[in-house]
Structures are given as structure tokens and as C-alpha cells.
């Protein structure tokens, strides 16, 4: 398998420029995100109480995050009572080690895996590959990405950046099929290969959409049936679950099941919803149903820190639907890879600096015009623009525990001077006079980096000969 291209969040600018130069990516992205956005609009228009649903879901999430330790503890207890084995992982390394150990203990050599952002987050495949146990991805999009040696560029549509032509070429190259770009033909080849992997697999890895505290059940949504097979055909099922996936009651699923598919893909409901509670008794299993063991790996990896951060904790309300990516004009323009992080788009821009640390993702909170389209479509009403602003402040001014990650000497000096000029009307007038003089020197404004950047694609605005304050004469009745 070829290597994954090394991208990182701090190289956002260069990665974005690469993406902008890719015409195929541009049309693939625009078509796909527009399509999902249209379907989403149609699906929610049919729900009269959409706003009430969003509000309800957010309240459930807020109440859960406020008592996350209680609910995740309850979930773990109930899951164990139902026959699952629960593991606690403080970080990515611990989580990967736990999964590797389970595989080793069972002598599992052939692993299959369904789509899961938590496993992407901890780079599980890479860790298992080091033990010669790299799982085969069984979600079609993920499988394509794995064949291509790529990383997902969207949280629910991992191969959104690829056209069917590109996928056809990849299949010819990697699978030796006759040339084709017909989706049905390509799917048939994929199905044949994947069925073979399922039949032989001895361990299946999945993610979790929701974990129900009162029953210890996990819910996984999908459209392809591969989750069903991943979680039931092998003898061992390992589910990796971020601790914020927990919801208190089984009845809460109702609201989230109405919100998530509609927001993500514009479906009323996904094709499959698997609710798995522990394991069957040996007697039931004799009929050949279900795995013998269910292991649930509860992943913290920075989440408990976010849960106690009053200003940022709403980040944990996210149900990973991907609606904010499809709505974001920046994501639509550059795609997911440019972000250089597992989670791209608006949610990635707030999540990554918190999970990985601001120093690892300095540009991401700034990779937005703060247009607010993400906030409008978010099914749990996360105020992403405000959280981006909060993170920008932390990046520049630092926090009690983290030094400023993004505070250049010249930029700091510029804003200090700016503030000084803006606080005094006389100084403001002086500065604008200087600027009027400056703009007459054509070289000067070509040399100032911000103006040169503007001028690279747009004509520069000109300061008026006379400002409003210098040209305003109050009419009768009005006064200065």
C-alpha cells in the first residue's frame, strides 16, 4: 500500500494553494457539496418542527456534556452488564495499543473496519500496520481512499474529492480490472473483493455514532451494509467511541436519528441503523449470530479537557454529520485535504486546535471568513463562528496553560499602532492623511504585503479625496 501524503494543519496556506490549482477537485467538490446541501434543504423542509428538534438535541447534548463523567460511567457499567468489555484510553497511543493487544490476544490476522472518524483521529490503521495487522476498510469511500494511499477529505464522504474517472483508473491500476468509469461496474468489483474480506475476517473494528448510557447500547448508522458485516461476521468486534458520543436515554435517539441523516446526506434515515447491546449468550450464538466478544474502547484524547472549558465545551455537542463542511464556502473552494487535519472544514477548524493543541493547528481558526453558514445548518446549533473567534483570541493572546501560538512581532506592533490611531480622532485624521499621501506613491502600496496580496487578484480601493468627516456639512435641522 502506498504511503499517506504527509500534510499538516500548520501548512494550511500551501495546501490550500495546491487545492486551488486542481481543476478536477474544484468541480468534484462543488458538485458534491451543492448536491448534499440541496438534498439537506429538501429533507428538512419536510420537517415542520426542525427548529424545535435542533433546540431539543442541543439541550440533551449540553446536559450530557455537563455531567459527562456520570453518563460515560453509566454507559460503561451498562455495557459491561450486557456482556461487553470496556477499555479506557486517555489518548491516541493508548487506544491504538488497546486495539492492537485485543487483536494480538485473539491471534487475529485479518481485520476489517467500517468507517469511523475516531479511528482516523488516532491513526489506528497506521498503528495496526506496524503490527502487520492493517485492517481492510469496508466502507466503499474509505476503501477507495485506502487503495489510493490517501486520507479522507470529508467526515462522511471520504472520497468526495475523487471523480468516477479517477476511481476507475485507480481500480484498473490496483485491481487489474478492465477500464471502466461506470459506478455500477466499479461497485460490483468492490463488493466482490470486500465480501471476500468479510468472509475471512477474524476481527471487525467500527466506530460509534451514539452510545446510550441507560442501556449500554451503541448505535451505528450506515448505508452500505458493511457495518452490519463488520460488527457481526468476525468473532471479535472492537468499537472505538469518543466519550462525547454518549447520550443519556434510549428515547433520546429519536431526535438524533431525525437530525443526523437529514443534515448529513439529506436522507430521511440511513439505509441501516445497527443498535448493538453487549453480546449474545453462547446459546444464542450457536445459531451463528453475532460476535463472541464486544470490546468498547472509550477514547478521551482531549475531550475531557474540552468538557470543562466553559467557553468551548459546545464543541462536544457535534454529532459528526458533515453539514457544516457542505455549507462552508471555504471548504467548498479548497476541500478537506488543505486543512491538513483529520477533521476538516468548520468543525475541524474548531476541533483540531483543541484536540491536537493550538501550536499544531495555528492557521485553522483563521481559515474562515466567519460567514456563519455553518452555524445555520448545524443540527445541534453549535455557534462555530463564535468558537473560531474565541480560538483566534487564544492563539494570539494565549491562555493560562498555553503560550500564544500565533503572535508575530510585526502583526502585534501593527495592531497596537492601529489601536492607538483609532482611539484618538486627531490621530485618526493624521493617519488617514498619511495614507492619502502614501497611496499616491505607486511603489509603496505594492511593497506593503497586505496591499500587494489584495492587488494580486483585485484592484485596490482608493481613499476618497475628501473623507466624509471633511466633506460633511450638516443640513438645516441636523447638527454636527
Amino acid at each position, binding site marked *: 500500500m502506498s504511503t499517506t501524503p504527509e500534510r499538516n494543519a500548520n501548512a494550511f496556506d500551501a495546501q490550500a494553494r495546491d487545492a486551488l490549482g486542481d481543476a478536477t477537485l474544484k468541480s468534484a467538490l462543488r458538485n458534491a457539496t451543492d448536491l448534499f446541501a440541496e438534498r439537506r434543504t429538501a429533507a428538512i423542509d419536510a420537517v415542520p418542527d426542525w427548529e424545535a428538534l435542533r433546540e431539543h438535541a442541543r439541550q440533551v447534548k449540553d446536559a450530557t456534556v455537563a455531567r459527562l463523567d456520570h453518563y460515560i460511567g453509566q454507559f460503561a457499567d451498562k455495557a459491561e452488564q450486557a456482556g461487553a468489555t470496556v477499555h479506557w484510553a486517555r489518548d491516541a497511543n493508548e487506544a491504538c495499543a488497546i486495539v492492537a493487544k485485543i487483536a494480538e490476544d485473539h491471534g487475529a490476522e485479518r481485520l476489517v473496519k467500517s468507517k469511523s472518524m475516531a479511528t482516523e483521529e488516532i491513526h489506528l490503521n497506521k498503528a495496526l500496520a506496524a503490527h502487520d495487522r492493517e485492517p481492510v476498510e469496508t466502507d466503499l469511500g474509505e476503501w477507495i481512499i485506502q487503495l489510493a494511499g490517501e486520507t479522507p477529505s470529508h467526515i462522511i464522504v471520504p472520497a468526495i474529492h475523487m471523480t468516477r474517472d479517477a476511481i476507475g483508473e485507480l481500480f484498473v491500476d490496483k485491481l487489474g480490472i478492465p477500464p471502466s468509469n461506470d459506478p455500477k461496474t466499479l461497485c460490483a468489483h468492490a463488493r466482490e473483493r470486500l465480501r471476500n474480506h468479510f468472509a475471512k475476517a477474524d476481527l471487525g473494528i467500527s466506530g460509534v455514532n451514539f452510545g446510550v448510557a441507560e442501556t449500554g447500547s451503541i448505535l451505528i448508522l450506515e448505508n452500505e451494509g458493511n457495518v452490519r458485516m463488520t460488527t457481526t461476521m468476525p468473532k471479535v468486534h472492537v468499537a472505538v467511541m469518543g466519550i462525547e458520543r454518549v447520550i443519556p436515554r434510549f428515547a433520546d435517539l429519536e431526535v438524533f436519528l431525525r437530525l443526523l441523516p437529514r443534515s448529513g446526506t439529506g436522507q430521511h434515515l440511513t439505509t441501516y441503523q445497527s443498535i448493538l447491546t453487549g453480546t449474545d449468550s453462547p446459546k444464542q450464538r450457536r445459531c451463528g449470530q453475532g460476535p463472541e466478544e464486544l470490546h468498547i474502547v472509550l477514547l478521551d484524547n482531549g475531550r475531557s479537557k474540552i468538557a470543562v472549558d466553559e467557553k468551548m465545551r459546545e464543541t462536544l455537542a457535534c454529532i459528526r454529520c458533515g453539514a457544516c463542511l457542505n455549507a462552508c464556502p*471555504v471548504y467548498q473552494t479548497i476541500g478537506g485535504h488543505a486543512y491538513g487535519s483529520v477533521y476538516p472544514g468548520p468543525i475541524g477548524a474548531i476541533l483540531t486546535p483543541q484536540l491536537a493543541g493550538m501550536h499544531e493547528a495555528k492557521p485553522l481558526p483563521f481559515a474562515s*471568513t466567519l460567514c456563519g453558514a455553518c452555524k445555520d445548518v448545524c443540527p445541534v446549533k453549535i455557534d462555530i463562528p463564535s468558537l473560531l*473567534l474565541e480560538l483566534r483570541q487564544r492563539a494570539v493572546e494565549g491562555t493560562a496553560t498555553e503560550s500564544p501560538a500565533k503572535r508575530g512581532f510585526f502583526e502585534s506592533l501593527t495592531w497596537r499602532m492601529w489601536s492607538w490611531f483609532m482611539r484618538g480622532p486627531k490621530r485618526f485624521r493624521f493617519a488617514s492623511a498619511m495614507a492619502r499621501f502614501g497611496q499616491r506613491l505607486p511603489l509603496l502600496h505594492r511593497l506593503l504585503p497586505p496591499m500587494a496580496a489584495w492587488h494580486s487578484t483585485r*484592484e485596490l480601493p482608493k481613499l476618497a479625496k475628501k473623507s466624509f468627516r471633511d466633506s460633511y456639512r450638516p443640513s438645516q435641522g441636523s447638527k454636527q
Partner: protein
Amino acid sequence: MSEASTASRNVALFATCLGDQLSPDTVHATVQVLEHAGCTVTFDPRQTCCGQPAFNSGFWQEARQVARHFINVFEHASAIVAPSGSCTAMVHRFPDLFRDEPEMRERAEKMAHRTFELSSFLVNELGVTDLGAKLNARVGWHDACHGLRDLGIKQEPRQLLAHVDGLELVELKTCESCCGFGGTFSVKSPEISTAMLDHKLDELAMTPIDVLAAVDGSCLMQIRGRLERRGSPVRTMHLAEILASR
């Protein structure tokens, strides 16, 4: 006329720093429109900026210093009106900016309630939609993000444009798409900023208009700069300029 509405007709104009320095014609038009609607307009020349550029860049300390100056200048006004949704939305954020200073926070809150963007002030506060304007043009409207999503302004400018004699409003599919400006984003990521705008402007090839209009000078600066670079015949106008056309 109730006392409240009388009071709201005394308007303290916030020209915005961009309006003051780059587009004084827009601000003059704003004064004309407000006076036509029966307001008495005051311009306090101590005013400068709302602080948004520093705030959006993460330099909150500097933003607070400028916001404090704004509050000192404007807090006694009965109504503050700006020809910009973005600057108005920033003033509405002042209470959050001063969340650790209870006294300033209270002053900011009181003032934020009395700060309005031009079209919503005309329609919602004054109940005026017909300003007797005349303009023979096909006009496409850009719903600037902060006005649209932070302040909920959507119908107000359309109601005003509907009463402009000779004006044909052309609804664009991309009317709610961001223009890509985003303050310092426009110069920190100029390529993304421009590609976002081009997506909007590409629609104009299929939808002929004469004027692309908005109620935010910053979006218009971005749009105008690109239209000129692309050699487009479409010109930009601020809502106030349209409403002041005779």
C-alpha cells in the same frame, strides 16, 4: 407619535471607518435617506472604528481599547445607525468583548440595543419602505453575511428596493454566498478569498445585471475590486446610494 419613536428619529450616524475614508458618497447618501425618512442626523467627528478588524484577528485587547472609545462617543445617543450590517453586528458583540468587566459590559449592552443597521432601522424601527427613489437598473442583491446571519436581515433591503422606481431586482442564486472578504482573511488568504468571490461572480455571466448591491461597504470593496480586475461592466452600489437616487 409615541415618545419612543420620536426619540428614535434622532439618529447618531456611525459612518464606519471604511465609509468615512473610502466611500464618503455612501455616507452622504445615508444621511440623505435618513433625513428623507424624517430623522435628525448627528455626526460626532470623534468617532473612528468599531474595532472589528482587531477583534476578528484575535487581538481582543486592542479591540477592547477601540470599542471603549466607541462607547464613550456613542453611549448617550438614542439611536445609532450604520450603513453596515457587519459593523452593527460588531457593536452587538461588545458585551461579550467586555465579559470580564461588569461595568463596561453593562454600558455596552445598553448601547448595543440602540445600534441598528440602515435597512432594518428604516423598515423595522421607522416603518418606512418608500423613500421616493428612482433608478433605472437591473440590480442583483448580495446578502452580506453578518447582516443576514447575525442580525437576521433578509427582507428589509428587498422591501426598500421594491419601492425604487425603475429598479428591477434580480434574485441571484448565490445571493447568500459569502463574498470571500472576511476582513484580514482577504489579504491573508487572497487566493481562497478570490476563488470564493469568483463562484459568485460567475453567476453574473448567465444572469445579466447592471448593478450588484449590498448594505456593507467592505463586501462592496471586495466585489468592486474583483469586478474591475475581471473587466466586468457590472458596477457596485450601496443600498444607501440606491435609495438616495433621484
